[in-house]
């Protein structure tokens, strides 16, 4: 059995799971091609409500606006850490991912639920639910605050643990071995 697997790996070049994943991927792509005809990408009544237009606009908006913004923000986050490290020369717990993760999660929520947060389609919303979209902006802000707060607590715990570890390491470090030989 093992010899057979080795033969197979020699022939194919990777684990059988790789082939299965690829086949599943191709099948899914094929399925999408069967249901996704170019006609559906275009709305002849209202051109700007076409999937094709939104897709193209999303690419342009991401590459021209979003990418520079988040790349710059990330760059600003990494600079102070580098500077501090070079000044004090001791290893720090990097705060980078403790900021990145809540920021990304908050951004994802904003992106997906933007229409509710900025109260788009209020009459439709009222007709369908009997309510207004009033709470969503506040909820998104609270959710963002909660995610950053959780991240800050985790970061504080991480720092405390690192401090504790370095201190115990210092204490248990053996003193210079004494020469016992006569």
């Amino acid at each position, binding site marked *: 059995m093992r010899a057979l697997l080795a033969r197979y790996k020699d022939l194919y070049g990777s684990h059988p799971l790789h082939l299965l994943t690829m086949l599943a991927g191709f099948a899914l792509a094929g399925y999408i091609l069967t249901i996704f005809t170019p006609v559906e990408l275009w709305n002849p009544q209202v051109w700007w409500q076409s999937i094709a237009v939104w897709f193209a606009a999303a690419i342009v908006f991401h590459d021209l606006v979003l990418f520079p913004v988040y790349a710059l923000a990330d760059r600003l986050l990494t600079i102070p850490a580098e500077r501090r490290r070079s000044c004090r020369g001791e290893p720090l717990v990097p705060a980078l991912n403790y900021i990145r*993760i809540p920021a990304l*999660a908050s951004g994802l929520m904003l992106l*997906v639920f933007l229409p509710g*947060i900025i109260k788009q389609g209020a009459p439709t919303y*009222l007709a*369908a*639910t*009997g309510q207004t979209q009033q709470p969503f902006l506040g909820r998104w802000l609270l959710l963002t605050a909660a995610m950053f707060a959780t991240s800050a607590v985790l970061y504080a715990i991480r720092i405390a643990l690192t401090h504790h570890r370095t201190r115990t390491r210092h204490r248990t470090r053996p003193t210079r071995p004494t020469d016992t030989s006569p």
Partner: protein
Amino acid sequence: MSRRGALALVGGGALLMAVVTAGQTLGGFTRHAALLLPRGRDHGDGPNDFQINRTAAAAAIIPEGTGDSWRLRLRGGPVPVVVDRKTLMAMPQHTARLPIACVEGWSTTETWSGVRLADLARLAAVAQPRSALVASLERYGAFNHAVLQANQISNSDALLALRVNGVDLSRDHGYPARIIVPALPGVHNTKWVASIDFRDH
């Protein structure tokens, strides 16, 4: 960023999306986790305080149409039968715990009671209805009527509901009477029912 980090980030994002959306259809305490969605919200603590898919005001249902003058018209038999709400309440009442499962992707399960559709077919003197056209008081809108099939009429939990969770339906939930049938898309559970046409074809 490492490949593992990227995978964890995408996976985490997907998980977060699941947490803030699944409550819309799971219901119960998880409903509150759908923080930023319309169907994650509370309407109150009362028996009629659950998700509405179309308000009476939006459907232009006027109070005069649903008051004491409201009548249910049953057609399909030798003669049309017209009944008021009191007569319906005097008929054998059946209770069923059924969901409104909306095609929007949310659902809510409630305890409904009212008259079995099969009993109404008998009242209309249609022995074996093959289908039924249910029409609402709502004059406009794509879902102001729905067609039920034979098995949907004969199911013992298929009701013309008059009450929910022990009280009369509220206007937004279809007072004076609404359809509730197992495994039927929410919009086909017609509200503010005005007439039912039983057909034997």
